[in-house]
């Protein structure tokens, strides 16, 4: 086995983003959707660090990644608060219960 580390990192990025997107397509539970977003953001983190490593500018990459982590945590908090609210209003955690468009 002679795969270089950046290729492995690339596979991790693709895998995490792909799994997250798949979940966004296939999953209807709101909290699961937030989990899927978390998984995707982890892929983005790895991508930032990999890019920094390949470009030789680890510092910028890390400070960007820091912002991403914070923003992502806030997204999780807000998303969860929304999910709880929706659970309270509709009695469900199902995204299909949210639409008010005529079908």
């Amino acid at each position, binding site marked *: 086995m002679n795969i270089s580390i950046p290729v492995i990192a690339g596979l991790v990025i693709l895998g995490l983003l792909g799994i997250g997107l798949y979940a*966004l*397509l296939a999953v209807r539970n709101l909290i699961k*959707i937030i989990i899927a977003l978390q998984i995707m953001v982890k892929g983005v983190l790895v991508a930032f660090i990999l890019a920094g490593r390949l470009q030789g500018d680890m510092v910028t990459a890390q400070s960007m990644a820091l912002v991403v982590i914070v923003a992502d945590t806030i997204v999780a908090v807000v998303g969860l608060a929304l999910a709880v609210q929706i659970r309270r209003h509709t009695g469900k955690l199902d*995204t*299909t219960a949210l*639409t008010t*468009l005529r079908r």
Partner: protein
Amino acid sequence: MATTLLLLTIAIPWVGGLIVWLVGNKHTGLQHRIAVAFALLAGGAGVALIPYSSSQIVVNLPLGSVFGNFTFVADGLGVFLTVVATVIGSLAVIFSVDYMQGEDQLGRYYAMVLFFIGAMSGLVLTSNMLLVFFFWEITALCSYALISFHNDDPKAVAGGIKALIITQIGGVGLLAGALLLYAVTGSMDFNAFIANPALMPAKWLGIMAFGFLIAAAAKSAQFPFQTWLPDAMEAPTPISALIHAATMVNAGVYLMARFYPAFKDVPGWTTAVLLVGMITALMAAVMALVSNDLKRVLAYSTVSQLGYMFYAIGAGGIYASQFHLFSHSIFKALLFLGAGAVIHSVGTRDMRQMGGLGKQMPLVRAVFIIGGLALAGIPILNGFWSKEMVLEAGLANAPVWTYIVMLIGAGITALYTFRCVWMVFYGEPHSDQHVHDAGPAMKVALIPLAFATLTSWLLAGSFGKLLGPETLPAHGIEISSLGEVIHEVLSLPTLIALIVIALGLAAWWWRGRLTGLSNALKGVGQAAADSFGFEAINRGIVKGTQSAAEALRATQTGLLNWNIFGIIAGLIIVLAVVIFGG
């Protein structure tokens, strides 16, 4: 100073609209006052702009490298139409104080009216094609919102939707032309292009010219899109006056006049404009003859007079078309506001239920007759001079048979005008309910318009200077004094035209003896009542657009998963373009 004034002309009505809306519908008195104040301010700013028109003031708002600058130019044509929009618009607003008394949701009404006026000023003052398109669409949106102002009335909503869809179809032509201009010349500014049309290769120029013609025809309700304007009569009457005289329909004539120097060498373009104008003028005149709805008669007469303007442009008479637009704005605003006063007090629009109103509303009768005489083209009112100018232009530069058709149209115009005046103000009263006279604000709006109808032709010379070569070098308008206009109008063809108009009048006086003829023409009347079948085309366009929208609704599921599916599909397309697109 002048640049501030230019931007103020657009900004004042918009700010006023915002304030009226924010005041809230609980303070109706305040809303009336604010709307009138801002409309008058805008009118003042527009008039104050006139002295600067020859000095070509230019305002550049830098907006990055993609769209170029947003440029506003106060040249003669733009200033003229701004003055029309703001002054006639402010009179319509004053009229609304009485007409809309006691209506709900005045905030929405006045905000949209002021927004409309500002957008029209912006449309005619900018020289950036993209901005022209934006303002063009804003006027379409405002007209829709105002036509459908009584949004619990299905007819009003249908009329508004129809106006919106038809003008949007035309807007596609404008957008295509604007994008072509940008793609070929790399600049959105059209002044350089008008000065040198050779910037565009011939085939693109042709597409642009006819795209603009479609846009202008849809906006100005010309053949074959003429049916939206009569349906827009469901609007409150001051709105009809605004749309017909001040803002909406003038945009199409403006577009044609503005781009005439660039497009006049496109093969077939001037002929097309000429024919569109001629067919519209004649057809709408016949339709006005058979209609029994007071506002519809006026709407058809607008369509017909706009046909005269298109005809003049097609014949190369830019001055004649703009002068007729000027006169038409004044007397048509007068007619509509007068009709509004009548409708407001009688409570119906059906002329068969009116009659004998002259005794109860003497002032309205007087001003309405002045407006009607101007519409018919009777000397010495302003409509006479401008219509004769149009006919002279047609005689000079167009085939003679088109001139004859336009003459017949003028005769029919006189006939339907007198029929309308007679049915409303004379004859036997058909309803015995008490009719109250027009309110004070209505009179305030009507009297200056009546005065202007009598005298605005005296401005022909200064009007020619306003559009003169130093501000519009490409248009080649050389008229600089009233004497020239009088000299041109007072000639043999004018006598012929007057005879035809007199024949139109006579046909109304002797209508009893002409029963044989009118029976023979009954079939034409039937066809005219159905808009000669073009109603079906327009209805088809509206239906098609609506059913397409209905079908596209399937794509709007409101489901998160499908939305994300769309995002990923978009991502795939972008990636495929990046990878395989070279």
